[in-house]
């Protein structure tokens, strides 16, 4: 088995609120190899972003807390690292692209300054050299006239350019792992495609592993190697991207794929999964998805299914596949 760059095992991130404990991430495990892209898909509030933030240990605490599990980055458990060690990891070996390019850049500094800052912090080089590298990086992410843009302020750039600048900032120190938290959600479709292309190109160039958080299955099909589908804090299905789109198994995944509009087909009403995401304070008994599931059987209401392999590399957490699981 190849060496994994990032191994997340039984990660549990809970939030302690006045109304009770919210299990935002509940027993989630996954692995990412070097140079590979894992996409985590799911509805709003299913714990995708919290998973990514947990990897960086950026959970606001209190009320949030990583309750258990381990996050091994190159064999070292991130949860146990000291603040000092964490800081040298953040922005250097692991970096993040945030959801909102409009607000993720500090309005009072020029783009160049912000990119330089992370370079100078982690690479220990002179300001002149850092500036050169920052401009080089701005060029790499495909922004024209990098020298001028380096001196511009965030308000002078468009959303797409800001997101490129964010990517430049994240990639400036050649990270080995990039956490992309809905990097294209705030952008329009044409820019979205460009940004995804760019990320793929950079991934090839620097052999970076990407953890892509998204709710857009189109983005997943475009970029990911592996996909994990999350629902209410748990991974319900995990497979490589071809397998998942060809052979979706969990009723939730099937529902997600069905609710995508299909080109060349007249659809009067778009399919939608009935019901709503359960409130984190009142999780249903058994499988969390059972109240919305069309195929729910009695067992689903009683017991929670475990994530188990039904095909090679294809894991599902659903009682409908109990036989296949046992056969395995």
């Amino acid at each position, binding site marked *: 088995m190849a060496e994994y760059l990032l191994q997340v095992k039984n990660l549990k991130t809970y939030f302690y609120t006045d109304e009770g404990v919210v299990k935002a991430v509940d027993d989630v495990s996954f692995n990412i190899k070097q140079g590979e892209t894992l996409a985590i898909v799911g509805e709003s509030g299913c714990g995708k972003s919290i998973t990514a933030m947990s990897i*960086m240990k950026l959970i606001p605490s209190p009320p949030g807390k990583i309750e258990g599990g381990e996050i091994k980055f190159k064999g070292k458990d991130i949860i146990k690292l000291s603040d000092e060690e964490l*800081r040298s990891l*953040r922005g250097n070996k692991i*970096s993040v692209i945030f*959801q909102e390019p409009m*607000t993720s850049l500090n309005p009072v*500094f020029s783009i160049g300054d912000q990119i330089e800052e*992370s370079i100078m912090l982690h690479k220990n080089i002179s300001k002149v050299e850092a500036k050169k590298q920052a401009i080089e990086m701005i060029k790499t992410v495909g922004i024209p006239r990098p020298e001028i843009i380096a001196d*511009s302020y965030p308000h002078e750039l468009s959303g797409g350019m800001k997101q490129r600048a964010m990517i430049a*900032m994240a990639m400036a120190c050649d990270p080995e792992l990039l956490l992309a938290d809905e990097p294209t959600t705030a952008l329009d479709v044409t820019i979205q495609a460009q940004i995804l292309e760019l990320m793929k190109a950079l991934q090839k160039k620097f052999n970076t592993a990407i953890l892509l958080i998204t709710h857009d299955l189109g983005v997943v099909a475009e970029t990911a190697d592996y996909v994990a589908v999350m629902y209410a804090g748990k991974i319900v299905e995990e497979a490589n991207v071809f397998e998942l789109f060809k052979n979706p198994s969990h009723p939730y995944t099937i529902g997600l794929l069905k609710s995508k509009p299909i080109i060349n087909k007249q659809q009067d009403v778009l399919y939608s999964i009935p019901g709503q995401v359960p409130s984190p304070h009142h999780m249903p008994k058994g499988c969390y998805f059972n109240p919305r599931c069309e195929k729910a059987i009695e067992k689903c209401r009683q017991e929670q299914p475990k994530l188990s392999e039904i095909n090679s590399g294809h894991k599902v957490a659903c009682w409908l596949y109990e036989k296949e699981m046992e056969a395995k």
Partner: protein
Amino acid sequence: MESKLQSGNQMEKKYEDEVVMSPAKLAWKKFKKNKIAMTGLIILVIILLISIFGPILSPYNMAAIDLTNTTGEPSLVHLLGTDASGRDNLTRVMYAGRISLAVGFFSVLIQVVVGVGLGVIAGYYGGIIDSIIMRLVDIFSCLPTLPILMMIGALMLDLKVRPENKMYFLMLIIGLLSWPGLCRLVRGEILSLREKEYMQAAEALGLKDSRKMFKHLLPNTAAIIIVSAALGVGSAILTESGLSFLGLGVTVPTPSWGALVQSVSDMDSLQSYPWLWIPAGICILLTVVSVNLIGDGLRDALDPKHNI
């Protein structure tokens, strides 16, 4: 194809002419358009220049007594006349300007350093640190300023602090009594700013707390700090003048504008020797008004939503 390329080149050319303006430059451009604030700035600069260089150019020593010419009327030799001890009044007004302005600026400097430093720390860390600092702010803002200043003035008299050293005490005390307001303002700003996404991004870059606080958060509060500091200079000058007028601040032979006005405390000299108190009074008025005009102008210039 050809024309497309050409227009592309033109675009490039246009881009090269593009000038990127820093926020400071933008603010200055806006400030320059504000005529009232510019008038204030010009007046203040003139007063500053006269106070700094005037005494050097003056042929008189500000403390030199000439008993043959006491309370002399303004003349070509003594442009603003002489005071009760025959000292040249113009020199004294100019020298007083140095002291009054220095007290104004340095006490504000102290106020900014203490208020902003504590405000940023309180806002950034929150929790118990915030509570402690905010209670300190509460205590300081409960202290009645005037009685304390008077007590300290009396104490200085008792301890026989040398007149020329009194201004340093004044700076320190005015500064230390006036920081709570600014501290509250800055803390409030930081509280909302630290929740912004870019601070999370800064955290994700692996920056240290101190750098996040003073490099990333502080510049975002620059506008309110600059404005309240500018307005603070005016009120510090007024406080100093008031105290010196009451005889509790700077005292003779060291002049300050307040002390000069005080030299005329009876009805007789008020009526007979207007040249002793009018110039200093006008100086106080002009300085404070122009400082306040500049403060207002800065407020507008630094507010991105305000267009002149």
